[in-house]
């Protein structure tokens, strides 16, 4: 990648980090907390995504 493209992409990422920090901080401090059951539900859904992505990888290999 060209040096200026690297610098531009890095600037975008730095800007995103700067804008995201207060949002992340707010949700960490004031966001609702999930129960063990809530997290289990979310993990099952995300595990299904992981399984599906593995299936896609096997299809293209």
């Amino acid at each position: 990648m060209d040096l200026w493209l690297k610098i531009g992409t890095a600037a975008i990422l730095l800007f995103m980090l700067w804008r995201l920090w207060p949002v992340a901080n707010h949700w960490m401090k004031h966001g609702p907390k999930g129960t063990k059951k809530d997290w289990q539900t979310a993990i099952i859904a995300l595990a299904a995504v992981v399984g599906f992505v593995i299936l896609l990888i096997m299809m293209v290999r």
Partner: protein
Amino acid sequence: MENYGQVVRGRESALSTNKVLRNTYTLLSMSLLFSALMAGVSMAVGISQGMALGAMIAAIVLVWFVLPKFENSAGGIAVVFAFTGLMGLSLGPMLSYYLAIPGGGNLVMTALGGTGIIFLGLSGYALTTKKDFSFMGGFLFVGLMVVFGAALLNIFLSIPALSLAVSGGVILLMSGLILFDTSRIVNGGETNYIRATVSLYLNIHNLFVHLLHLLSVFAGGDD
């Protein structure tokens, strides 16, 4: 009498949620089509990587600084189309690169179909269960910061394994954000369909880009 009032308020709330959902999915489908059209234009014209980066910077400026001023008016719809159009334009060089490698067309179509299935599956799950996934907010936003930090490092380090880990992390985080954003619409946490559309569009866009990267690495066409 009090029960009647509660029933009416509950019904009004459900109607309002349905309206936000309908408007969000209508605007999202139209903006995705427009974005795809602009990606096609970008490939046909053959815009450079520098111009693609410029389009992405303009899209970020629109979404962070212009959209908040128009999100409660009809002008917000024009901003959404301008934003998604620019994001589509920025995809041009990347898509041209993948389509030029052997089997690249198959990879792009697999990533596109995979993104559609993941989005429809997770959105459908959040819509039918009506479960509130807002408890994931802290985890998802901190996760995004970690992934952005790793991506920032990898721009200069260029470690293939880290690039793969970033793509895997983004796919998981965007999947979590689809659950989070959809459940916020369903449960009344998000009442503005313009903001909801932009959030879901960004989830789909990032999911597609990183799924394509991951698939191309495992297919042996990228590093």
